[in-house]
């Protein structure tokens, strides 16, 4: 896989920075001939991952750093969102949409998985979380998920 472009963005865990993350990613992706709907999907997925880093990872403490790395390959766009926050104890459980807690909708990962072609989560309690999102470029064959 050849790398065509890459950017790295570090943000503070402030709610307003979700928008910054999504605009930066969409601007980065605009080099690709995506249509507006594709870009919307990418933006929603990024918003969810960054929101999770803020609210769950850093539990709304404003001084956490979120790192977003976007890489454009020949056939896909990869976006990695990392925090050094609380981490996830049980990843399998976190990926389930059903939630007993009425405060959480539990749809963030569901959106990410339905809008992107690949979603990987690496996390350990106390060690932070890394979410890898991948979307095929337009015209690439989409693997059914």
């Amino acid at each position: 896989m050849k790398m065509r472009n890459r950017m790295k963005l570090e943000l503070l865990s402030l709610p307003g920075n979700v928008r910054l993350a999504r605009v930066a990613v969409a601007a980065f992706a605009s080099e690709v001939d995506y249509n507006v709907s594709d870009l919307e999907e990418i933006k929603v997925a990024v918003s969810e991952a960054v929101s999770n880093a803020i609210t769950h990872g850093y539990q709304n403490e404003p001084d956490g750093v979120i790192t977003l790395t976007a890489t454009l390959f020949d056939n896909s766009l990869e976006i990695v969102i990392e925090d050094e926050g609380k981490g996830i104890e049980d990843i399998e459980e976190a990926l389930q949409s059903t939630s007993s807690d009425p405060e959480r909708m539990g749809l963030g990962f569901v959106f990410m998985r339905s809008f992107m072609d690949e979603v990987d989560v690496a996390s350990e309690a106390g060690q932070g979380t890394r979410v890898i999102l991948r979307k095929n470029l337009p015209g690439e064959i989409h693997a059914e998920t």
Partner: protein
Amino acid sequence: IGEIRRYLRDNNPIRVSRSLRDTAYKAIQVREALINKNSREPSLNEIAKELSIPGEDVVFAMDAIQEPVSLFEPIYH
């Protein structure tokens, strides 16, 4: 330089938020027009070309008119 600066000032005393909104609505109109014309969804860059502004600026403007994403609201209207 003074002239360039004055040019920028005299023509744009308005707030950024309003100018972004104007751009976004134009982009939406162009998108609709292109869908009708070509019977398919245009790419971002086709819309940008029609508006004669960079794709990145279209992205930024269209984002500015969106409500902050909330899971408590449907995303697509």
